[in-house]
Protein backbone atom coordinates (compact mmCIF):
# COMPACT_ATOMS: atom_id res chain seq x y z
CA UNK A 1 0.00 0.00 0.00
CA UNK A 2 1.53 3.28 1.06
CA UNK A 3 5.14 3.49 1.95
CA UNK A 4 6.43 4.34 5.39
CA UNK A 5 8.05 7.40 3.92
CA UNK A 6 4.72 8.72 2.70
CA UNK A 7 3.16 8.31 6.12
CA UNK A 8 5.98 10.08 7.89
CA UNK A 9 5.95 12.88 5.33
CA UNK A 10 2.16 13.13 5.60
CA UNK A 11 2.20 13.48 9.37
CA UNK A 12 5.15 15.85 9.15
CA UNK A 13 3.26 18.17 6.80
CA UNK A 14 0.11 17.99 8.93
CA UNK A 15 2.03 18.84 12.08
CA UNK A 16 3.80 21.71 10.32
CA UNK A 17 0.49 23.21 9.23
CA UNK A 18 -1.00 22.68 12.67
CA UNK A 19 1.93 24.63 14.12
CA UNK A 20 1.46 27.44 11.59
CA UNK A 21 -2.22 27.49 12.46
CA UNK A 22 -1.55 27.74 16.17
CA UNK A 23 1.43 30.11 16.25
CA UNK A 24 -0.53 33.39 16.28
CA UNK A 25 -2.94 31.92 18.82
CA UNK A 26 -0.15 30.79 21.11
CA UNK A 27 1.50 34.17 20.63
CA UNK A 28 -1.62 35.98 21.80
CA UNK A 29 -1.96 33.66 24.78
CA UNK A 30 1.67 34.09 25.81
CA UNK A 31 1.52 37.88 25.66
CA UNK A 32 -1.83 37.88 27.46
CA UNK A 33 -0.25 36.07 30.38
CA UNK A 34 3.06 37.88 30.04
CA UNK A 35 4.26 40.84 32.06
CA UNK A 36 3.12 44.27 31.05
CA UNK A 37 6.49 45.91 31.40
CA UNK A 38 8.11 44.02 28.55
CA UNK A 39 8.49 46.55 25.76
CA UNK A 40 9.14 43.88 23.17
CA UNK A 41 6.14 43.63 20.83
CA UNK A 42 7.30 40.22 19.69
CA UNK A 43 6.47 37.05 21.53
CA UNK A 44 8.28 35.96 24.61
CA UNK A 45 7.47 33.16 26.98
CA UNK A 46 5.64 34.55 30.00
CA UNK A 47 7.19 34.30 33.43
CA UNK A 48 4.33 32.40 35.03
CA UNK A 49 0.62 33.00 34.62
CA UNK A 50 -0.17 36.65 34.93
CA UNK A 51 -3.89 37.23 35.35
CA UNK A 52 -3.35 40.92 35.94
CA UNK A 53 -3.68 41.77 32.25
CA UNK A 54 -7.21 40.40 32.17
CA UNK A 55 -8.21 42.41 35.21
CA UNK A 56 -6.68 45.45 33.54
CA UNK A 57 -8.47 44.86 30.27
CA UNK A 58 -11.69 44.37 32.21
CA UNK A 59 -11.47 47.62 34.17
CA UNK A 60 -9.03 50.02 32.51
CA UNK A 61 -9.90 48.79 29.01
CA UNK A 62 -13.65 48.75 29.86
CA UNK A 63 -13.95 45.29 28.33
CA UNK A 64 -16.36 44.30 31.07
CA UNK A 65 -18.99 46.65 29.73
CA UNK A 66 -18.11 45.88 26.08
CA UNK A 67 -18.67 42.19 26.81
CA UNK A 68 -22.05 42.96 28.34
CA UNK A 69 -23.03 44.85 25.16
CA UNK A 70 -21.83 42.00 22.96
CA UNK A 71 -23.75 39.45 25.00
CA UNK A 72 -26.96 41.47 24.82
CA UNK A 73 -26.75 42.08 21.06
CA UNK A 74 -25.75 38.50 20.30
CA UNK A 75 -28.48 36.92 22.41
CA UNK A 76 -31.20 39.03 20.82
CA UNK A 77 -29.93 38.54 17.26
CA UNK A 78 -29.59 34.78 17.68
CA UNK A 79 -33.00 34.39 19.32
CA UNK A 80 -34.92 36.54 16.84
CA UNK A 81 -33.11 35.12 13.81
CA UNK A 82 -33.75 31.54 14.92
CA UNK A 83 -37.45 32.11 15.53
CA UNK A 84 -38.12 34.03 12.32
CA UNK A 85 -35.92 31.78 10.19
CA UNK A 86 -37.68 28.65 11.43
CA UNK A 87 -41.09 30.15 10.66
CA UNK A 88 -40.12 31.36 7.18
CA UNK A 89 -38.17 28.24 6.27
CA UNK A 90 -41.14 26.11 7.35
CA UNK A 91 -43.27 27.93 4.80
CA UNK A 92 -40.61 27.56 2.09
CA UNK A 93 -39.88 23.96 2.97
CA UNK A 94 -43.27 22.28 3.30
CA UNK A 95 -45.88 24.63 1.82
CA UNK A 96 -46.59 25.59 -1.73
CA UNK A 97 -47.88 29.05 -2.46
CA UNK A 98 -47.62 31.43 -5.40
CA UNK A 99 -44.36 33.36 -5.52
CA UNK A 100 -42.53 31.12 -3.07
CA UNK A 101 -39.59 30.50 -5.42
CA UNK A 102 -39.08 34.18 -6.11
CA UNK A 103 -39.33 35.07 -2.42
CA UNK A 104 -36.87 32.33 -1.54
CA UNK A 105 -34.36 33.64 -4.07
CA UNK A 106 -34.68 37.08 -2.50
CA UNK A 107 -33.55 35.56 0.79
CA UNK A 108 -30.71 33.61 -0.82
CA UNK A 109 -29.49 36.84 -2.40
CA UNK A 110 -28.42 37.96 1.07
CA UNK A 111 -25.97 35.03 1.36
CA UNK A 112 -23.48 36.39 -1.17
CA UNK A 113 -24.25 40.06 -0.69
CA UNK A 114 -21.29 41.87 0.90
CA UNK A 115 -22.15 44.08 3.83
CA UNK A 116 -20.36 46.91 2.04
CA UNK A 117 -23.34 47.07 -0.32
CA UNK A 118 -25.72 47.89 2.54
CA UNK A 119 -23.87 49.68 5.25
CA UNK A 120 -23.87 53.17 3.72
CA UNK A 121 -27.65 53.70 3.37
CA UNK A 122 -28.23 51.69 6.55
CA UNK A 123 -26.26 54.28 8.49
CA UNK A 124 -28.18 57.23 7.05
CA UNK A 125 -31.56 55.46 7.50
CA UNK A 126 -30.90 54.54 11.09
CA UNK A 127 -29.56 58.00 11.87
CA UNK A 128 -32.71 59.46 10.33
CA UNK A 129 -34.83 57.21 12.55
CA UNK A 130 -32.74 58.22 15.57
CA UNK A 131 -31.44 54.71 16.08
CA UNK A 132 -27.68 55.12 15.69
CA UNK A 133 -25.85 54.71 18.99
CA UNK A 134 -28.53 52.33 20.22
CA UNK A 135 -28.57 48.55 20.45
CA UNK A 136 -31.23 48.53 17.72
CA UNK A 137 -28.70 49.77 15.18
CA UNK A 138 -26.65 46.64 15.84
CA UNK A 139 -29.50 44.18 16.31
CA UNK A 140 -31.87 44.93 13.44
CA UNK A 141 -29.43 44.92 10.48
CA UNK A 142 -27.56 41.89 11.80
CA UNK A 143 -30.80 39.97 12.26
CA UNK A 144 -31.81 40.78 8.69
CA UNK A 145 -28.43 39.64 7.35
CA UNK A 146 -28.44 36.46 9.45
CA UNK A 147 -31.92 35.61 8.20
CA UNK A 148 -30.51 34.96 4.73
CA UNK A 149 -28.44 32.11 6.10
CA UNK A 150 -31.06 30.97 8.63
CA UNK A 151 -33.86 30.71 6.09
CA UNK A 152 -31.63 28.98 3.53
CA UNK A 153 -30.26 26.52 6.08
CA UNK A 154 -33.55 25.65 7.78
CA UNK A 155 -35.39 25.28 4.48
CA UNK A 156 -32.94 22.53 3.56
CA UNK A 157 -33.86 20.82 6.82
CA UNK A 158 -37.63 21.14 6.29
CA UNK A 159 -37.27 19.93 2.70
CA UNK A 160 -35.51 16.83 3.96
CA UNK A 161 -37.91 16.11 6.81
CA UNK A 162 -39.96 12.97 6.18
CA UNK A 163 -43.19 13.79 4.38
CA UNK A 164 -44.92 10.85 6.05
CA UNK A 165 -44.52 12.41 9.49
CA UNK A 166 -46.09 15.66 8.35
CA UNK A 167 -48.94 13.80 6.64
CA UNK A 168 -49.55 11.68 9.74
CA UNK A 169 -49.78 14.80 11.88
CA UNK A 170 -52.22 16.30 9.41
CA UNK A 171 -54.40 13.21 9.48
CA UNK A 172 -54.44 13.44 13.26
CA UNK A 173 -55.83 16.90 12.79
CA UNK A 174 -52.80 18.85 13.91
CA UNK A 175 -52.65 22.44 12.73
CA UNK A 176 -49.61 23.59 10.80
CA UNK A 177 -48.52 25.46 13.95
CA UNK A 178 -48.70 22.36 16.13
CA UNK A 179 -46.95 20.25 13.51
CA UNK A 180 -44.08 22.70 13.43
CA UNK A 181 -43.54 23.10 17.16
CA UNK A 182 -44.43 19.63 18.40
CA UNK A 183 -42.84 17.52 15.69
CA UNK A 184 -40.55 19.30 13.25
CA UNK A 185 -38.71 21.62 15.64
CA UNK A 186 -37.90 18.88 18.20
CA UNK A 187 -36.78 16.62 15.34
CA UNK A 188 -34.69 19.40 13.85
CA UNK A 189 -32.56 20.14 16.88
CA UNK A 190 -29.26 19.34 15.11
CA UNK A 191 -30.05 21.66 12.18
CA UNK A 192 -31.25 24.39 14.53
CA UNK A 193 -28.17 24.18 16.73
CA UNK A 194 -25.94 24.54 13.66
CA UNK A 195 -27.82 27.70 12.72
CA UNK A 196 -27.56 29.01 16.27
CA UNK A 197 -23.79 28.56 16.55
CA UNK A 198 -23.11 30.09 13.14
CA UNK A 199 -25.27 33.15 13.78
CA UNK A 200 -23.75 33.44 17.26
CA UNK A 201 -20.25 33.49 15.81
CA UNK A 202 -21.07 35.99 13.05
CA UNK A 203 -22.82 38.36 15.42
CA UNK A 204 -20.16 38.10 18.11
CA UNK A 205 -17.35 38.78 15.63
CA UNK A 206 -19.08 41.55 13.65
CA UNK A 207 -16.99 44.64 13.24
CA UNK A 208 -17.87 46.92 10.30
CA UNK A 209 -21.49 47.47 11.33
CA UNK A 210 -20.52 48.30 14.90
CA UNK A 211 -17.82 50.66 13.66
CA UNK A 212 -20.31 52.56 11.54
CA UNK A 213 -23.33 52.56 13.86
CA UNK A 214 -21.75 53.20 17.24
CA UNK A 215 -19.81 56.32 18.11
CA UNK A 216 -20.41 56.48 21.86
CA UNK A 217 -18.51 54.21 24.19
CA UNK A 218 -21.62 52.98 25.99
CA UNK A 219 -22.73 50.75 23.10
CA UNK A 220 -19.36 49.43 21.96
CA UNK A 221 -19.14 45.70 21.35
CA UNK A 222 -15.93 43.77 22.06
CA UNK A 223 -14.48 43.74 18.51
CA UNK A 224 -15.04 47.48 18.25
CA UNK A 225 -13.56 47.98 21.72
CA UNK A 226 -10.43 46.09 20.70
CA UNK A 227 -10.04 48.15 17.53
CA UNK A 228 -10.31 51.42 19.46
CA UNK A 229 -8.02 50.17 22.19
CA UNK A 230 -5.39 49.16 19.70
CA UNK A 231 -5.66 52.56 18.03
CA UNK A 232 -4.94 54.31 21.32
CA UNK A 233 -2.55 51.92 23.07
CA UNK A 234 -0.93 49.98 20.24
CA UNK A 235 2.23 49.48 22.31
CA UNK A 236 0.34 47.89 25.19
CA UNK A 237 0.74 44.38 23.78
CA UNK A 238 -0.13 42.51 26.95
CA UNK A 239 -3.44 44.29 27.39
CA UNK A 240 -4.33 44.00 23.70
CA UNK A 241 -3.62 40.29 23.85
CA UNK A 242 -5.68 39.83 27.01
CA UNK A 243 -8.60 41.64 25.38
CA UNK A 244 -8.20 39.47 22.26
CA UNK A 245 -8.43 36.36 24.41
CA UNK A 246 -11.60 37.68 26.05
CA UNK A 247 -13.15 38.21 22.59
CA UNK A 248 -12.09 34.91 21.09
CA UNK A 249 -12.71 32.66 24.07
CA UNK A 250 -16.52 32.33 23.97
CA UNK A 251 -16.52 31.38 20.28
CA UNK A 252 -13.53 29.07 20.62
CA UNK A 253 -15.12 27.21 23.54
CA UNK A 254 -18.35 26.64 21.62
CA UNK A 255 -16.30 25.71 18.54
CA UNK A 256 -14.29 23.08 20.38
CA UNK A 257 -17.47 21.57 21.83
CA UNK A 258 -19.54 21.67 18.64
CA UNK A 259 -16.82 21.51 16.02
CA UNK A 260 -18.85 19.52 13.52
CA UNK A 261 -21.78 21.93 13.62
CA UNK A 262 -19.48 24.88 12.94
CA UNK A 263 -17.73 23.25 10.01
CA UNK A 264 -20.94 21.92 8.51
CA UNK A 265 -22.64 25.30 8.75
CA UNK A 266 -19.76 27.37 7.45
CA UNK A 267 -19.12 25.12 4.49
CA UNK A 268 -22.76 25.34 3.44
CA UNK A 269 -22.37 29.03 2.75
CA UNK A 270 -22.05 28.56 -0.97
CA UNK A 271 -25.46 28.30 -2.48
CA UNK A 272 -26.40 25.27 -4.47
CA UNK A 273 -29.79 24.39 -5.71
Amino acid at each position, binding site marked *: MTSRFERVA*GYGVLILFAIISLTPVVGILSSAFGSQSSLDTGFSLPDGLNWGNFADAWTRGHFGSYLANSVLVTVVVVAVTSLLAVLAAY*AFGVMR*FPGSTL*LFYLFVLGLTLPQEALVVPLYFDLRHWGLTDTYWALILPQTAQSL*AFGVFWMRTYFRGSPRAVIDAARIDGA*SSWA*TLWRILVPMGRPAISTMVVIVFMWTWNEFLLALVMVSDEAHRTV*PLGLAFFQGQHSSDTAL*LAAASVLIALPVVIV*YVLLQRRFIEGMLSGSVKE
Partner: protein
Amino acid sequence: MSAGHLPGGPAGRLRALVGRHYGGRAPGEPRAVGYLYLLPAFILYAVFLLFPLCQTIWLSFVHWDGLTVATEAGLDNYRDLFRDPVLRDSFLHALALLVFYAALPVAIGLLLASVLSRFRVRGMTFFRTVLFLPQVLAMVVVAVAWRSILAPDGLLNDLLRTVGLEGLTRSWLGDYTWALPAVGAVGTWVETGLCLVLFLAGTQRIPRELYEAARMDGAGAVREFFAVTLPGLRAEIAVALTLTMIAGLRNFDLIYITTGGGPGTSTSVPAYQVYHRAFEINEVGSAAAVGVGLTVLIFVLTVAVTRLVEGRNTT
Protein backbone atom coordinates in the same frame (compact mmCIF):
# COMPACT_ATOMS: atom_id res chain seq x y z
CA MET B 1 -43.68 14.48 21.89
CA SER B 2 -45.48 11.87 19.88
CA ALA B 3 -48.16 12.47 17.30
CA GLY B 4 -50.68 10.72 19.53
CA HIS B 5 -50.86 13.74 21.82
CA LEU B 6 -51.93 16.06 19.07
CA PRO B 7 -55.32 17.72 19.25
CA GLY B 8 -58.09 17.07 16.76
CA GLY B 9 -60.76 14.45 16.58
CA PRO B 10 -62.75 12.83 13.85
CA ALA B 11 -63.64 16.21 12.42
CA GLY B 12 -60.04 17.16 12.01
CA ARG B 13 -59.27 13.84 10.46
CA LEU B 14 -62.04 14.26 7.91
CA ARG B 15 -60.94 17.76 7.06
CA ALA B 16 -57.42 16.50 6.51
CA LEU B 17 -58.56 13.66 4.27
CA VAL B 18 -60.61 16.02 2.13
CA GLY B 19 -57.74 18.44 2.04
CA ARG B 20 -55.49 15.77 0.63
CA HIS B 21 -56.86 16.18 -2.83
CA TYR B 22 -55.20 19.53 -3.08
CA GLY B 23 -51.78 18.03 -2.36
CA GLY B 24 -48.70 19.94 -1.16
CA ARG B 25 -50.85 22.07 1.12
CA ALA B 26 -49.74 23.25 4.49
CA PRO B 27 -50.59 20.71 7.17
CA GLY B 28 -54.26 21.26 7.91
CA GLU B 29 -54.47 24.90 6.77
CA PRO B 30 -55.37 26.80 3.63
CA ARG B 31 -52.30 27.43 1.51
CA ALA B 32 -52.26 31.18 2.07
CA VAL B 33 -51.06 30.53 5.62
CA GLY B 34 -47.56 30.21 4.14
CA TYR B 35 -47.46 33.97 3.75
CA LEU B 36 -48.22 34.40 7.44
CA TYR B 37 -45.25 32.26 8.44
CA LEU B 38 -43.10 34.22 6.08
CA LEU B 39 -44.25 37.68 7.02
CA PRO B 40 -42.20 38.55 10.14
CA ALA B 41 -38.91 37.44 8.58
CA PHE B 42 -39.74 39.12 5.31
CA ILE B 43 -40.60 42.48 6.88
CA LEU B 44 -37.32 42.62 8.77
CA TYR B 45 -35.38 41.40 5.75
CA ALA B 46 -37.05 43.88 3.44
CA VAL B 47 -36.57 46.91 5.69
CA PHE B 48 -32.97 46.21 6.73
CA LEU B 49 -31.57 44.43 3.69
CA LEU B 50 -33.59 44.73 0.48
CA PHE B 51 -34.50 48.39 1.00
CA PRO B 52 -30.90 49.51 1.79
CA LEU B 53 -29.69 47.51 -1.19
CA CYS B 54 -32.00 49.50 -3.48
CA GLN B 55 -30.89 52.70 -1.78
CA THR B 56 -27.25 51.84 -2.42
CA ILE B 57 -28.01 51.48 -6.09
CA TRP B 58 -29.86 54.83 -6.09
CA LEU B 59 -27.04 56.53 -4.14
CA SER B 60 -24.49 55.31 -6.65
CA PHE B 61 -26.09 57.60 -9.24
CA VAL B 62 -25.85 60.80 -7.20
CA HIS B 63 -23.24 63.08 -5.70
CA TRP B 64 -23.93 63.49 -1.98
CA ASP B 65 -21.88 64.65 0.97
CA GLY B 66 -24.27 63.17 3.53
CA LEU B 67 -25.68 66.56 4.60
CA THR B 68 -26.78 68.83 1.80
CA VAL B 69 -29.08 68.00 -1.10
CA ALA B 70 -27.89 65.23 -3.39
CA THR B 71 -27.30 66.10 -7.03
CA GLU B 72 -27.69 63.91 -10.07
CA ALA B 73 -24.42 62.25 -11.05
CA GLY B 74 -25.40 60.00 -13.94
CA LEU B 75 -22.67 57.45 -14.44
CA ASP B 76 -19.92 59.64 -12.94
CA ASN B 77 -19.38 57.47 -9.89
CA TYR B 78 -19.09 54.35 -12.02
CA ARG B 79 -16.74 56.03 -14.46
CA ASP B 80 -14.55 56.87 -11.48
CA LEU B 81 -14.17 53.17 -10.68
CA PHE B 82 -12.05 52.99 -13.83
CA ARG B 83 -10.65 56.52 -14.02
CA ASP B 84 -9.75 57.36 -10.43
CA PRO B 85 -6.38 55.68 -9.90
CA VAL B 86 -7.05 55.08 -6.20
CA LEU B 87 -10.31 53.25 -6.90
CA ARG B 88 -8.93 51.37 -9.87
CA ASP B 89 -5.97 50.25 -7.80
CA SER B 90 -8.28 49.19 -4.97
CA PHE B 91 -10.03 46.75 -7.28
CA LEU B 92 -6.69 45.55 -8.65
CA HIS B 93 -5.45 45.01 -5.09
CA ALA B 94 -8.58 43.00 -4.33
CA LEU B 95 -7.93 40.80 -7.36
CA ALA B 96 -4.30 40.38 -6.35
CA LEU B 97 -5.42 39.42 -2.85
CA LEU B 98 -7.56 36.67 -4.36
CA VAL B 99 -4.32 34.88 -5.22
CA PHE B 100 -3.56 34.79 -1.50
CA TYR B 101 -7.11 34.29 -0.26
CA ALA B 102 -8.34 31.77 -2.80
CA ALA B 103 -5.73 30.40 -5.22
CA LEU B 104 -2.97 29.61 -2.70
CA PRO B 105 -5.24 28.05 -0.03
CA VAL B 106 -6.95 25.87 -2.64
CA ALA B 107 -3.60 24.79 -4.12
CA ILE B 108 -2.08 24.04 -0.71
CA GLY B 109 -5.27 22.32 0.42
CA LEU B 110 -5.32 20.09 -2.67
CA LEU B 111 -1.68 19.17 -2.28
CA LEU B 112 -2.07 18.26 1.38
CA ALA B 113 -5.35 16.43 0.84
CA SER B 114 -3.83 14.31 -1.92
CA VAL B 115 -0.92 13.35 0.33
CA LEU B 116 -3.22 12.57 3.24
CA SER B 117 -5.76 10.66 1.17
CA ARG B 118 -3.18 7.94 0.59
CA PHE B 119 -3.43 6.60 4.13
CA ARG B 120 -5.63 6.73 7.20
CA VAL B 121 -4.62 9.61 9.44
CA ARG B 122 -4.86 9.10 13.16
CA GLY B 123 -5.98 12.03 15.29
CA MET B 124 -7.83 13.57 12.35
CA THR B 125 -10.37 15.23 14.65
CA PHE B 126 -7.58 17.06 16.44
CA PHE B 127 -5.93 18.22 13.22
CA ARG B 128 -9.26 19.28 11.76
CA THR B 129 -10.09 21.32 14.87
CA VAL B 130 -6.72 23.06 14.82
CA LEU B 131 -6.59 23.73 11.08
CA PHE B 132 -10.12 25.13 10.98
CA LEU B 133 -9.57 27.30 14.07
CA PRO B 134 -8.55 30.50 12.20
CA GLN B 135 -12.02 30.51 10.62
CA VAL B 136 -13.83 31.03 13.91
CA LEU B 137 -11.58 33.74 15.36
CA ALA B 138 -12.86 37.30 15.04
CA MET B 139 -11.01 39.01 12.18
CA VAL B 140 -10.24 41.80 14.64
CA VAL B 141 -8.36 39.34 16.83
CA VAL B 142 -6.57 37.81 13.83
CA ALA B 143 -5.52 41.30 12.78
CA VAL B 144 -4.15 42.20 16.21
CA ALA B 145 -2.22 38.92 16.39
CA TRP B 146 -0.68 39.31 12.94
CA ARG B 147 0.09 42.96 13.42
CA SER B 148 2.41 42.02 16.21
CA ILE B 149 3.95 39.14 14.23
CA LEU B 150 4.62 41.43 11.26
CA ALA B 151 5.81 44.37 13.36
CA PRO B 152 9.42 45.58 12.91
CA ASP B 153 10.45 43.78 16.13
CA GLY B 154 7.86 41.04 15.74
CA LEU B 155 8.15 37.29 15.49
CA LEU B 156 8.74 37.13 11.73
CA ASN B 157 11.74 39.45 11.83
CA ASP B 158 13.03 37.66 14.93
CA LEU B 159 12.89 34.39 13.01
CA LEU B 160 14.66 35.87 10.01
CA ARG B 161 17.40 37.24 12.25
CA THR B 162 17.82 33.89 13.97
CA VAL B 163 18.41 32.08 10.69
CA GLY B 164 20.80 34.78 9.52
CA LEU B 165 18.56 36.51 7.00
CA GLU B 166 18.99 39.88 8.68
CA GLY B 167 18.87 41.58 5.30
CA LEU B 168 15.27 40.50 4.67
CA THR B 169 13.85 42.02 7.83
CA ARG B 170 11.62 45.04 7.35
CA SER B 171 8.49 46.69 8.62
CA TRP B 172 6.25 44.35 6.66
CA LEU B 173 3.05 46.34 7.01
CA GLY B 174 4.75 49.67 6.45
CA ASP B 175 6.49 48.73 3.22
CA TYR B 176 5.02 49.90 -0.10
CA THR B 177 5.95 46.68 -1.87
CA TRP B 178 5.45 44.17 0.91
CA ALA B 179 2.35 45.39 2.76
CA LEU B 180 -0.11 43.87 0.27
CA PRO B 181 1.53 40.41 0.17
CA ALA B 182 1.86 40.56 3.97
CA VAL B 183 -1.87 41.18 4.37
CA GLY B 184 -2.45 38.50 1.75
CA ALA B 185 -0.40 36.00 3.74
CA VAL B 186 -2.76 36.50 6.67
CA GLY B 187 -5.60 35.63 4.29
CA THR B 188 -3.78 32.49 3.24
CA TRP B 189 -3.36 31.59 6.89
CA VAL B 190 -7.08 32.03 7.55
CA GLU B 191 -8.41 30.21 4.48
CA THR B 192 -6.05 27.26 4.05
CA GLY B 193 -7.58 25.28 6.89
CA LEU B 194 -11.05 25.67 5.44
CA CYS B 195 -9.90 24.33 2.07
CA LEU B 196 -8.03 21.44 3.62
CA VAL B 197 -10.98 20.38 5.78
CA LEU B 198 -13.28 20.51 2.74
CA PHE B 199 -10.92 18.50 0.55
CA LEU B 200 -10.19 15.89 3.21
CA ALA B 201 -13.92 15.28 3.56
CA GLY B 202 -14.11 15.11 -0.23
CA THR B 203 -11.33 12.59 -0.72
CA GLN B 204 -13.05 10.26 1.72
CA ARG B 205 -16.03 10.16 -0.62
CA ILE B 206 -13.93 9.15 -3.62
CA PRO B 207 -14.37 5.37 -4.06
CA ARG B 208 -11.25 3.44 -3.02
CA GLU B 209 -11.58 1.31 -6.15
CA LEU B 210 -10.69 4.31 -8.32
CA TYR B 211 -7.36 4.65 -6.53
CA GLU B 212 -6.74 0.92 -6.71
CA ALA B 213 -7.55 0.90 -10.41
CA ALA B 214 -5.19 3.80 -11.00
CA ARG B 215 -2.43 1.97 -9.18
CA MET B 216 -3.05 -1.23 -11.12
CA ASP B 217 -2.54 0.83 -14.25
CA GLY B 218 0.81 1.83 -12.80
CA ALA B 219 -0.11 5.46 -12.07
CA GLY B 220 2.25 7.28 -9.74
CA ALA B 221 1.24 9.81 -7.15
CA VAL B 222 1.12 12.62 -9.72
CA ARG B 223 -0.97 10.75 -12.30
CA GLU B 224 -3.24 9.55 -9.52
CA PHE B 225 -3.75 13.14 -8.41
CA PHE B 226 -4.75 14.37 -11.85
CA ALA B 227 -6.74 11.28 -12.84
CA VAL B 228 -8.61 10.53 -9.62
CA THR B 229 -8.30 13.11 -6.83
CA LEU B 230 -8.73 16.31 -8.83
CA PRO B 231 -11.82 15.24 -10.78
CA GLY B 232 -13.27 13.69 -7.64
CA LEU B 233 -12.98 16.97 -5.77
CA ARG B 234 -14.64 19.20 -8.38
CA ALA B 235 -17.61 20.08 -6.21
CA GLU B 236 -15.43 20.77 -3.18
CA ILE B 237 -13.07 22.95 -5.21
CA ALA B 238 -16.02 25.03 -6.40
CA VAL B 239 -17.27 25.46 -2.84
CA ALA B 240 -13.79 26.31 -1.56
CA LEU B 241 -13.17 28.87 -4.29
CA THR B 242 -16.56 30.48 -3.75
CA LEU B 243 -16.17 30.79 0.01
CA THR B 244 -12.57 32.00 -0.08
CA MET B 245 -13.18 34.51 -2.87
CA ILE B 246 -16.14 36.00 -1.06
CA ALA B 247 -14.08 36.19 2.13
CA GLY B 248 -11.22 37.83 0.25
CA LEU B 249 -13.40 40.46 -1.41
CA ARG B 250 -15.32 41.27 1.78
CA ASN B 251 -12.03 41.80 3.57
CA PHE B 252 -12.49 45.01 5.57
CA ASP B 253 -11.63 44.32 9.22
CA LEU B 254 -8.11 43.06 8.50
CA ILE B 255 -7.13 45.98 6.27
CA TYR B 256 -8.69 48.56 8.59
CA ILE B 257 -6.76 47.32 11.61
CA THR B 258 -3.42 46.25 10.13
CA THR B 259 -2.71 48.94 7.55
CA GLY B 260 -5.66 51.30 7.20
CA GLY B 261 -5.15 50.96 3.44
CA GLY B 262 -1.59 52.20 3.68
CA PRO B 263 1.18 52.92 3.38
CA GLY B 264 -0.18 55.48 0.93
CA THR B 265 -2.95 53.54 -0.76
CA SER B 266 -0.88 50.43 -1.34
CA THR B 267 -3.26 48.09 0.52
CA SER B 268 -6.49 49.93 -0.16
CA VAL B 269 -9.31 47.57 -1.21
CA PRO B 270 -12.91 48.27 -2.32
CA ALA B 271 -14.35 47.26 1.05
CA TYR B 272 -12.07 49.80 2.72
CA GLN B 273 -12.88 52.49 0.15
CA VAL B 274 -16.62 52.11 0.83
CA TYR B 275 -16.02 52.95 4.48
CA HIS B 276 -13.41 55.60 3.80
CA ARG B 277 -15.49 57.46 1.20
CA ALA B 278 -18.82 57.28 2.99
CA PHE B 279 -17.72 58.01 6.53
CA GLU B 280 -14.35 59.73 6.39
CA ILE B 281 -14.37 62.00 3.33
CA ASN B 282 -18.15 62.29 2.80
CA GLU B 283 -18.33 61.08 -0.80
CA VAL B 284 -21.41 58.97 -0.24
CA GLY B 285 -22.35 58.48 -3.89
CA SER B 286 -18.90 57.26 -4.79
CA ALA B 287 -18.88 54.90 -1.79
CA ALA B 288 -22.18 53.42 -2.97
CA ALA B 289 -20.81 52.89 -6.48
CA VAL B 290 -17.79 51.05 -5.05
CA GLY B 291 -20.20 48.91 -2.99
CA VAL B 292 -22.23 48.06 -6.08
CA GLY B 293 -19.06 47.35 -8.06
CA LEU B 294 -17.83 45.02 -5.35
CA THR B 295 -21.17 43.21 -5.25
CA VAL B 296 -21.21 42.75 -9.01
CA LEU B 297 -17.63 41.45 -8.92
CA ILE B 298 -18.56 38.91 -6.24
CA PHE B 299 -21.59 37.69 -8.19
CA VAL B 300 -19.70 37.44 -11.48
CA LEU B 301 -16.80 35.52 -9.90
CA THR B 302 -19.15 33.21 -8.00
CA VAL B 303 -21.12 32.33 -11.11
CA ALA B 304 -17.93 31.94 -13.16
CA VAL B 305 -16.43 29.53 -10.65
CA THR B 306 -19.56 27.40 -10.51
CA ARG B 307 -19.68 27.27 -14.32
CA LEU B 308 -15.98 26.59 -14.84
CA VAL B 309 -15.27 24.13 -12.09
CA GLU B 310 -18.51 22.27 -11.85
CA GLY B 311 -19.43 22.27 -15.50
CA ARG B 312 -22.74 23.40 -16.90
CA ASN B 313 -24.82 20.45 -15.80
CA THR B 314 -25.53 21.87 -12.35
CA THR B 315 -28.46 24.19 -12.29
